[in-house]
């Protein structure tokens, strides 16, 4: 049975600098007995979708139907668990769990009974009278779960509930949640999980909706037909993770489109991160699975991805079907000393990043070899939003400074050429 349906949701936020589209044509539905995961990089609007379902946000276009009726105002059939717990620090565990029942106007004995039951269920007994600050992160999130479950919601909304916890605690809590679900210890009819961990989505959900950012939109829906409990090391599990990874990173599906514009703008990756990645991979000798690499470095895919992309753009590495290879240049880079590295980086950067070359040309054309930050920002803004332009320029400056292509004065916000002119660029 269809519990909830989103129909053509469009949402944009208005800022003084202009309008930013956050969600574009989001439509999907959730059935009873289903765990749905919304998976995508930050900025793909997955948490925003959750807030629309909860009735906290109203989209400019589109409708939400809950049990066939159009949703107006707060959705009383849902409860939410937040990434950073959102507990009331001045209330004890019991009071935190009870507060929603109080809002319903239940008498005290009934409130207490239900709250204690929820606390027992989630494994918090003994901590009823503790304050949140006395608890560890995992226990705090258990309070978050108890508070949501005590309301006996039809749909449980989970906004990255495990991402503020350490690996073991998160694993533990995930399994407890799945146990409650498959053994039907809770009356919840459906769950929607927002996450940016592919593995987490594949481990928990029955269906995964993949989102892309700027603006947030659905790119694919994938059913996961493996029964619980799922083996994370099994082939079908790993294949699914790899496939989803391929779709999210736009390879190979959108490889060609990506290639054409790829040097125009560079991903958000500092030189230090790129160097570090190349060194790590070089030590491994041979191709490395990107997903595993992320796990090993304890990095989220969405943080790792820009660094991978940057290495690719610079020609230090190549990515084939989720595996990361160093090119010859990459190997040379990894083994070089500091000065040689800078030289190599300079060569590659000027060759592969047109905008860096453009900056140098502009600086050379000026008699004082100087130009203000705002000047370059304005140039970038022809293609990018104000915020993106800022970020882009920051990365460009980081790269340029490292390679000693130009220098930057933070106080005056000026980019200028070092004393010795760059012969090789001049001749071009």
């Amino acid at each position: 049975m269809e519990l909830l349906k989103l129909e053509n949701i469009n949402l944009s936020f208005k800022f003084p600098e202009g309008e930013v589209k956050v969600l574009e044509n989001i439509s999907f539905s959730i059935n009873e007995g289903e765990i749905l995961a919304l998976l995508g990089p930050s900025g793909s609007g997955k948490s925003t979708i959750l807030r629309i379902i909860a009735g906290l946000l109203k989209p400019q276009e589109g409708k939400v139907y809950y049990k066939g009726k159009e949703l107006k105002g707060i959705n009383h059939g849902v409860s939410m668990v937040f990434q950073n717990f959102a507990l009331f620090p001045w209330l004890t565990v019991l009071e935190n769990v009870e507060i929603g029942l109080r809002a319903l106007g239940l008498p005290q004995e009934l409130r207490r009974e239900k709250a204690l039951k929820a606390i027992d269920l989630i494994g918090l007994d003994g901590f009823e009278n503790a304050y949140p600050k006395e608890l560890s992160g995992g226990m705090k999130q258990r309070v978050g779960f108890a508070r949501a479950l005590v309301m006996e919601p039809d749909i449980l909304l989970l906004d990255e509930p495990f991402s503020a916890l350490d690996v073991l605690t998160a694993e533990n809590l995930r399994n407890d949640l799945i146990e409650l679900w498959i053994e039907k210890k809770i009356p919840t009819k459906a769950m929607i999980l927002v996450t940016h961990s592919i593995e987490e989505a594949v481990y928990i959900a029955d269906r995964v909706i993949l989102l892309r950012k700027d603006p947030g939109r659905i790119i694919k829906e994938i059913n996961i037909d493996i029964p619980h409990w799922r083996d994370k090391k099994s082939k079908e599990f790993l294949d699914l993770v790899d496939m989803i990874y391929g779709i999210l990173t736009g390879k190979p599906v959108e490889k060609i489109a990506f290639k054409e514009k790829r040097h125009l703008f560079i991903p958000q990756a500092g030189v230090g991160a790129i160097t570090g990645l190349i060194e790590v991979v070089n030590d491994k000798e041979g191709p490395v699975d990107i997903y595993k690499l992320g796990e090993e470095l304890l990095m989220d895919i969405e943080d790792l991805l820009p660094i991978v992309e940057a290495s690719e753009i610079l020609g230090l590495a190549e990515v084939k079907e989720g595996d990361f290879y160093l090119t010859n240049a990459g190997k040379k880079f990894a083994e070089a000393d500091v000065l040689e590295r800078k030289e190599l980086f300079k060569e590659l950067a000027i060759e592969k990043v047109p905008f860096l070359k453009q900056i140098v040309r502009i600086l050379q054309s000026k008699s004082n070899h100087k130009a203000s930050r705002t000047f370059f920002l304005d140039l970038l803004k022809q293609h990018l939003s104000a915020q993106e332009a800022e970020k882009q320029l920051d990365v460009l400056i980081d790269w340029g400074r490292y390679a000693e292509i130009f220098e930057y004065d933070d106080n005056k916000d000026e980019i200028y050429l070092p004393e010795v002119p760059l012969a090789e660029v001049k001749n071009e």
Partner: protein
Amino acid sequence: MKRIIWSPITYRKFSVGDILILLFIGSIIYALSSLNTFYTKPSNPLFFDLSISKLPLYSIYSLIRMIIAYFISFIFTLIYGYTAAYNKNLEKILIPLLDILQSIPVLSFLPPVFMAVLTLFPGSRLGLEITSIILIFTGQVWNMVFSFYHSLISIPKELRETSQIIGLNPWLRFWHLELPYSAIGLLWNSMMSIAGGWFFLMACEMFTITNQEFVLPGLGSYLAFASLKGDLNKIIIGLLTLIIIIILIDQLIWRPLTSWAQKFKMEFTESEDSYNSIVLLWYRRSQILNFFGQKILYPLRENINQYFVERYKRVKISVSNSQWSRIWNKVIIFIILALLIRGVIGLGTLIFNLPLNIWQRVLISAIITLLRVVVAVIIGLSWTLPIGIKIGMNPKLAKVFQPIVQILASIPATALFPILLIFLINISGGLNIASILLMLLGTQWYLLFNIIAGAISIPKDLIEVSSLMGIKGWEKWKTLILPCIFPYLVTGGITAMGGAFNASIVSEYIIYNNKVIKTIGLGALITESSSTGNNSLLAASTLTMALMVVLINRLFWKRLFKLSEEKFSQIGG
């Protein structure tokens, strides 16, 4: 087998806390019952009994006035703060208005309040009491409003979302989210407000209006009358009483409250430093409080909660609610605008009647007062800066000195003032020096507190690095200390300067030993015009002062503040 656990708490029938509470209630009943004897005496307003035996009673009267004024301030704070935080339209009027109201000195409120109260309660003593209470109220309410408004708009987004999803109605939301979140800020500001109340108590309990003097029985009027008579012994005795009361309030009310309010900190890990209070333990063991809490407060709260749950359920069904609230909104905006326009017109007619030479006098006075204020702040800085840094950077010193400084700071400088005068009165320009000293006494603490707080916040690793690199003397001040404490310094400066302007009204014009002693200054103009009933002059000088304070804040302090945020923010950017 069941074990019987002997519990000391049930065994103890009566705790120290109970005795304290009974003493408090008893003294208030006693004071109220004997209030009549004061007012049935012949209504010669200048009669005042200075005998020491009356002092406890006077103190209780002053205390009751302060409590009532504080209570009104609290209610006002909630309403004003709530409206400003949740009504985007009204916010645009209310917040700048607050800036202006805050910079108006207490005595400028006297004539309008007096007139209004007098028309409501003609010729009655109750009217006098109400006037005095409202004066105290105007002296303490504004910073509380600011604090509450600020807390409300900075409540974390997830907590707001949580309370929406859980379905907290506005009543529950207030008790479980908004009030707890603003509790600590409100508490600190209440302490500051009450301290400010003591500062102006003399002016609020004995005042002259249209050349008629009014005295209310109280500690402030005791001090005021003693200085009017030039009776140094009585001044000192009154002052001692005042200090005892302030210490008692600190120990019996503020300390337990701050200790209790720890639980409202927005922190999720336990912090090491905590405020302990033995008195809080006494109260917790108090039979009276427990009875009151369990048998009266708890059922009452449950019933009220139930009422609101039912009410808001019904509201949800009826759609007309939003329409009503919209009309209600418009009505409020209309009333406020009407009041504002009425006030502006009233002020305008008062001011435009003033001849030019009076304006000249106002301006010259303003400049002289400004000079005094600047001198006072500079003197204040010159001693608080080195000492505050010393205390703040040394945790051991801080532990010893902070309570001492707190008590010193809460002694109202106005009470010390007459004693100061005795020494300075015969020197030429004595009042000039004295009034700068009074401003200094009243405001240096804001500087000191903020500098200590700033020094405590200097990151330990930065201190270590500088000592490793051998940075000493001026170099250390320039590279380490000043940049770190700059934002705190600016905050302290704003408060100190505002306070000094306010203090000018009690320091530039005084009656001592039956003589009027005054010096040129804006404060003197305000006090004089308020007591002689020259409303145009009062309006002009008040407006000048408000304008000056707001302008200095906007043009000087706010810019410094912005600079400090950009340049010296420790989070780097």
